[in-house]
């Protein structure tokens, strides 16, 4: 993971980012995996515009959210740097060229009443795409797996699962995430955080919360409030999860006033 240590991130301007994705949308052949690979090579490794961590975040978001991988990765990388405006402009830049080309092809296709040459071109392009995405997958391992045996095991299981089922098993990604959370001893905290957040909204999480997680019996301010309301309020995760409802109310009104 040498990229990690040497990384000095030079955040790109919104215009440069759009120009890059316009180019990628025009010349980026090979499908979603190849496109993700180009982004890693160009933006993380060659230009240093995106940190390895931001890229990994984007990959995780694109993988967990339903929808096209490469487009969502591009949207995320733009969102991290330039917010909603960046994501919007980059989406248009990235999708636009492909859209125009596909419409042109479709027009020819309809005018010609079908097209056998599409199949022939595909016959040649598909194996070339396999070569491109093999390299992308290889490049990705350095960024996401390193030498961590657990991560390598997770990748191996998912690779096997994908080959066996011939499709992506969405729940497996979520499980993989929680496996690493558990391995780092953060599972209890994570469940508690989710339980606090969704208290009363989902029966199952509420049950977990009541059954397995100890709530502190008193409010963390210990004394400032009367401590009469021992149940912590649902509020923004860890920070305030020990506060009782009245304390939260007091602190929020004091910041407002």
């Amino acid at each position, binding site marked *: 993971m040498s990229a990690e240590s040497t990384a000095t991130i030079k955040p790109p301007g919104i215009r440069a980012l759009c120009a890059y994705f316009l180019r*990628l*949308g025009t*010349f980026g052949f090979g499908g979603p*995996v190849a*496109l993700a690979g180009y982004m890693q090579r160009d933006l993380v490794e060659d230009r240093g515009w995106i940190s390895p961590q931001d890229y990994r*975040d984007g*990959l*995780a*978001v*694109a*993988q*967990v959210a339903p929808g096209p991988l490469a487009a*969502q990765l591009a*949207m995320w990388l733009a*969102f991290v740097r330039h917010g909603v405006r960046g*994501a919007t402009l980059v989406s248009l830049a*990235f*999708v636009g060229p492909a859209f125009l*080309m*596909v*419409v042109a*092809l*479709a027009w020819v*296709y309809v005018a010609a009443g079908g*097209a056998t*040459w599409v199949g022939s*071109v*595909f*016959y*040649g*392009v*598909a*194996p*070339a795409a396999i*070569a*491109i*995405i093999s390299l992308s*997958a290889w490049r990705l*391992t350095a960024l*996401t797996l390193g030498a961590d045996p657990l991560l390598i095991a997770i*990748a*191996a*299981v*998912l*690779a*096997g699962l*994908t*080959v066996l089922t011939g499709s*992506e098993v969405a729940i497996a*990604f979520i499980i*993989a*995430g*929680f496996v*690493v*959370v558990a*391995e*780092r001893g*953060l599972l209890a905290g*994570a469940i508690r955080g989710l339980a606090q957040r969704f208290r009363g909204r989902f029966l199952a999480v509420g049950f977990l919360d009541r059954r397995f997680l100890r709530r502190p019996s008193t409010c963390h301010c210990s004394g400032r409030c009367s401590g009469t309301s021992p149940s912590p309020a649902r509020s923004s995760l*860890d920070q305030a999860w020990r506060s009782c409802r009245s304390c939260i109310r007091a602190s929020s009104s004091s910041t407002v006033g």
Partner: protein
Amino acid sequence: MPFLHQGLVVEHGWLNEQQFLDSVAVGLITPGPVVITASFAGFLIAGLPGAFVGAVGVFLPAYLLVVIPGRWILRHKDRPAVRAFIVGVSAAATGAIMGAVVVLGRGALVDAPTVAIALLALVSLILIRRWKPPVLSALAEPAVVLVAGLAGLALRGA
């Protein structure tokens, strides 16, 4: 993709099998995101407005699913538990991508010529990346795809 097939061909009968296969092929051989297939299919069904609807229908939900939870993720992404979760998911994604290479490979490498194309493409991409020839290195993949497409035409005929 199976999702698109189910909806367009099986349920609504908007496209026949051959048109669907051609749509997917067009999505794959054109640069940029593959799901632009939806635009091709949309055009076949309803012309230019159809193409537009296809693109919006595919990309708008994807966009919203990134942008809406985005703020929340950015706010919490440095928590150790969220970090660990992301590390796990991206490792899983890498595995799934490796698996996808195998699955797609089985479909694409069907005979000796296709295997030869894949190997030649692999070797040339690695060499171009290593030697960095002036113009070619910026356009290595488009060049390889172009040559491969022409090879397909030569082998199979137009």
